[in-house]
């Protein structure tokens, strides 16, 4: 990987919660315009890694560089970095008191100061993009899980992020809704949105990922181009993990 293209550079990242050492000397690059899928057993530190990339978690040691800037020590200024990074959560976390449209325009208007008309126009375009323009005026609890997650993706995109982070975006969904969400993520990736996706969906990883990272116990055990990873030249542990989730 040519280092010049990396939009994210993580070096020697460590993170503990009390006595629990969750991330151990994690180093990796995320290339501009590429999609990285992070897999691994639960508790392996995948989500924490994701939350360190937009500083939702404070970093104990090591460094995170985003878009050419060292963001490790932004501290109370961390919100500046977050404006350029979209995040999608397992439980959607749409704002319950706002309609789909209001969810999408809130941050552009309040954080970026974009005029309401422009924000609404952008929001409607984004709802088209995630294929639910007809749900603009619905409240989150009136939408299915798959629809909520697609609104959540639109909400993140409304900030015109340089990178998207997906934290198990389909884990809380009924099986029949997983595809509609993965399709949207796949479209975005194919359009060149830099993405880091924590997921257990191996078919998606195979189709969409440029690289696959395998984590276990807070350590990056494997970080390979997708084809290589699935061809089985990856580490023994990764193979065992794949076996477990592919043949359960």
């Amino acid at each position: 990987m040519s280092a010049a293209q990396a939009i994210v550079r993580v070096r020697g990242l460590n993170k503990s919660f009390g006595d629990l050492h969750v991330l151990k000397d994690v180093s990796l690059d995320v290339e501009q315009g590429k999609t990285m899928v992070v897999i691994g057993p639960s508790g392996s530190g995948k989500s924490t890694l994701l939350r360190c990339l937009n500083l939702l978690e404070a970093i104990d040691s090591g460094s995170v560089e985003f878009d050419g800037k060292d963001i490790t020590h932004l501290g109370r200024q961390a919100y500046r970095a977050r404006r350029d990074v979209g995040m999608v959560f397992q439980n959607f976390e749409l704002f319950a008191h706002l309609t789909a449209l209001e969810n999408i325009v809130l941050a552009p208007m309040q954080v970026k100061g974009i005029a309401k008309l422009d924000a609404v126009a952008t929001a409607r375009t984004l709802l088209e993009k995630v294929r639910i323009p007809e749900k603009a005026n619905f409240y989150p609890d009136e939408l299915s899980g798959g629809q909520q997650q697609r609104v959540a993706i639109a909400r993140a995109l409304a900030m015109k992020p340089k990178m998207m982070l997906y934290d198990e975006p389909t884990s809380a969904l009924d099986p029949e809704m997983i595809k509609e969400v993965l399709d949207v993520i796949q479209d975005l990736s194919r359009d060149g949105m830099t993405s880091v996706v924590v997921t257990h969906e191996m078919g998606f990883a195979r189709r969409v990922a440029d690289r696959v990272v395998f984590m276990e116990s807070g350590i990056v055990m494997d970080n390979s181009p997708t084809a290589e990873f699935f061809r089985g030249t990856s580490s023994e542990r990764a193979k065992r993990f794949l076996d477990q989730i592919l043949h359960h």
Partner: protein
Amino acid sequence: MDKPWLVFEYFVSPRFVLGAALTLWITIVSLFFGILVGLLIALLQESKNRYLNAFAVGYLWLFRGTPALFQIIFVFNVLPQFGITLSNFWSGVVALAMNEGAYMAEIVRSGLQAVGLGQRTAARALGMKEWQAMRYVVLPQALRIIIPPTGNQFIGMLKLSALVSAVAVEELLLVANQAASANFRYLEALSAAGLYYLLFTTLFMLIQAKIEDWARGKRRRRGKKASLIERMIGATSDSGRVR
């Protein structure tokens, strides 16, 4: 009741009207300051500083652990020994507001806590500062939870305001009592006062229903709305507790 018109005469007499107005005023002022105190105590409880936490817990212990009547008499009679002399009216209001604050704190806190941590995280992930997340995401949702029980507190406070008669504030109950002791027409005088209380509580409940509709915003009306009687019984059993 051999002279039923006496109830009406009392009801419209200037003394009763003034007493009723004062009762209403005590209620509004005490609740207003009570809400401010409650907000402050709730934020202290939520704070990460353990001294502030300890202060909040001590406050709740003190004001929920002693009767409101005790607090009123204490403020009126004991504070002057420490150089703080308040009028009868303000002694009553200060005590009621401090007492109310201890109960409002719990209401505010449960409202804040009912908004999941994930909502705040999502707001921060969108680049909002902490205060923006509070202002645009947490508080609007918390308010909808806080408003209905606050309406009950209003009705509770109206009834608690009668305690202020103990420090000779001429509110409704004291007026009625004085009127009756002049001619032993207790039934008529107290009935007139009782009618005022019922009038006020009924009005409050109607206003509360309107506010709850507003708090629900444009949302579909979900579930059965409480009838007026249910509200009154609910409010009475909730706020009529002895403090």
